[in-house]
């Protein structure tokens, strides 16, 4: 038991990683990426066919929810994990991205690649507008404001006609092909590769940020905001940055999602999605990107995999959350030991 709960795969993994030479690292990373790229075919290949999901199509599940959730969880991890801000309305940015794609493509005929920068920009803009007032508040007040923001975006989408009201926007075109890879519904693996590329991009971005100035500032803010401010960190600016970068990732995921499903409606952007993504982050291990990826993959995949017990599916999901949190409160792959705040009572996240 003690071994199970104290075993820190993250630290162990980091030790092994540190022992490798540059060449071995490169080969490992490339091999891993190729392996992931082959994942859509896992369901059809004998030895890995146990991965197949009943009723739903495995390749589609890999794109949404699995791929999208990993992407969004990585984005939310910048906010929650890196700088310690509790955001309960992350789905709002996803919705903004999706509606940007929906409106610009159906009204002005732009394609996904042209819309992508705008989707990201609008999500970032929303992040600034929400963040400027909200980030002055601490902890749980931020939680309720972000929660409210998520609901406001959804209700506004229901109430306006440019967003199609409760019907949403149908007939969103798929992205045009790149490098001869055609994006259509019969080839979900192409989408998966696109999502995979975006995940890799975000991972790279987060790693860059983490070791540079913003990463250190976020870390300081997370550990103790007052001390960070005293040490000369402009806390509001850096909190806003983490918020806005998280929003950008959410917006990008939204643009991609809308172009994949072709029909979006407000009921896809409910509070549950925000909660589920937060659960992914915490389940996997707050602040550790590999943990977050693993957590999101499991929590997105599990309900689809156990669809055959459709009645009790969510019941089991709830039980898994309780059990996991009780057994491994720091998540599957916890963050580095030195990054953990020395626990007094009621630590700030």
């Amino acid at each position: 038991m003690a071994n199970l709960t104290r075993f820190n795969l993250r630290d162990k993994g980091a030790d092994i990683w540190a022992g490798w030479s540059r060449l071995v690292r490169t080969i490992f990373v490339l091999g891993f990426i190729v392996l992931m790229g082959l994942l859509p075919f896992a369901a059809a290949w004998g030895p890995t066919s146990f991965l197949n999901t009943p009723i739903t199509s495995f390749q589609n599940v890999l794109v949404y929810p699995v791929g999208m959730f990993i992407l969004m969880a990585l984005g939310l991890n910048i906010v929650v994990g890196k700088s310690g801000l509790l955001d309960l309305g992350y789905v709002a940015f996803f919705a903004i991205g999706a509606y940007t794609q929906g409106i610009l493509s159906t009204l002005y005929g732009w394609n996904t690649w042209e819309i992508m920068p705008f989707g990201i920009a609008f999500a970032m803009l929303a992040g600034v507008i929400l963040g400027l007032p909200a980030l002055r508040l601490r902890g749980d007040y931020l939680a309720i404001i972000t929660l409210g923001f998520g609901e406001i975006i959804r209700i506004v989408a229901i109430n306006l006609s440019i967003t199609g009201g409760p019907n949403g926007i149908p007939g969103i075109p798929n992205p045009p092909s790149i490098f001869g890879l055609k994006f259509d519904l019969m080839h979900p693996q192409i989408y998966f590769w696109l999502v995979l590329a975006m995940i890799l991009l975000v991972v790279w971005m987060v790693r860059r940020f983490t070791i540079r100035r913003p990463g250190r500032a976020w870390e300081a803010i997370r550990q103790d905001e007052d001390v960070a401010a005293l040490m000369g960190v402009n806390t509001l600016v850096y909190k806003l940055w983490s918020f806005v970068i998280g929003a950008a990732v959410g917006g990008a995921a939204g643009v991609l999602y809308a172009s994949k499903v072709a029909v979006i409606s407000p009921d896809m952007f409910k509070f549950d999605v925000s909660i589920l993504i937060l659960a992914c982050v915490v389940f996997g291990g707050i602040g550790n990107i590999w943990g977050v990826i693993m957590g999101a993959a499991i929590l997105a995949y599990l309900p689809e995999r156990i669809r055959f017990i459709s009645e009790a599916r969510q019941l089991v999901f709830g039980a898994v959350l309780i059990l996991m949190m009780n057994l491994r409160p720091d998540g599957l792959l916890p963050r580095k030991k030195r990054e953990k705040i020395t626990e007094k009572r009621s630590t700030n996240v």
Partner: protein
Amino acid sequence: MNKKIVSGLAIAAAATLAFGVVATAPANAAAKKTVTLAFQGPLTGGDAQLGQDQIPGAIYAIALYNAKNPAVKVELIKADSQCDGTVAANIAPGVAANKAVIGVVGTSCSGEARNSFPAYRAAGLTMIAPSASAVSLTDPKAPDRGFPIFHRVVAHDGFQAPALARYAAKGVTAPKYYVIDDMTTYGGPLAKGTLATAKKLGTVVGTDSVAKGTADYTSVASKVKASGANVVIYGGYTTDAAKLFKALRDGGYTGILASGDGTNTSDFPGLAGKAAEGVRLTAADVPFDKILTAAQLAEFTKITGVKVPGLYSTTAFNATNIFLDCISQGKLTRPAIQLCVNSGSFKGVGGDVIKFNRYGDIIGGAPVGGYLVKNGVIIYDAVA
């Protein structure tokens, strides 16, 4: 409990979940004598009753067929898309990928239909819906139309909404309408659709939109009362309709209450209690038990375990029967089924002729029935 046991159990549970029983039924496409139909609709979730009411109609139709046709057996798989577009967007590609499935009975809700179209269209899989009634699904100009794979054996809201406005004001000389909707894909457009007819027949003194799941309807009740309306039309589902109508009656409103097929479920009179009395409901459906003979009804109960067929059992039965007709003609592939459904002429259980137009609606339109709540029971009144 011992810690070791607890953690052991946890690991065992996790392992079972991750790699446990594989209940996939990758029905073999090579098998010659069995074909599969899929029923897609809400079987769990908040709107489960809608699908649970319909599926017995499909099961009954298939049981009758299998008893008569030993050569080609038909199986039914359930695709539970929970009346939720997001879920449907994932379910549909899965059903489409299952090569054994040659037709889809469904969907029950309009939202899930729209999200299923892209996958089914790409796979050439024909759908016949028992109850998805949004106008745009068969509108030649709408971007989310289901052409060419979508068909439905139910009158769409373009018929139902005006009929609802007419039926609600039946016998009222100068109706003053108050129209309320629940901000959903179903309720919003239905309520909006009644406005034109309402303006023709009388005046619209007010509108409001209250999100589904709201607890308190008293402020709406006061507004309605203050407006002097005498006909209230609600576009929404049973639970909220019951709450709204109760609040209206308790608030002293004495006029007519009316709602569409979302409210027309067997639960409604019980939920709304006294406020349900005299409520006018519409549905694009004729009750199944009114059509079946006593012997057939007993057989229905024996096969499905359901005593009184629910709403849209008739349309679900009809939808399934159209597929079965084609199958008995030897059409066992997706393109053959599609051609057969598109061009064939079929017989509904009530003796009516079903033939689809180019965009999937029954030519001549399906009738909209008007229902009344009397002594706690919904009874069929007249064609609305």
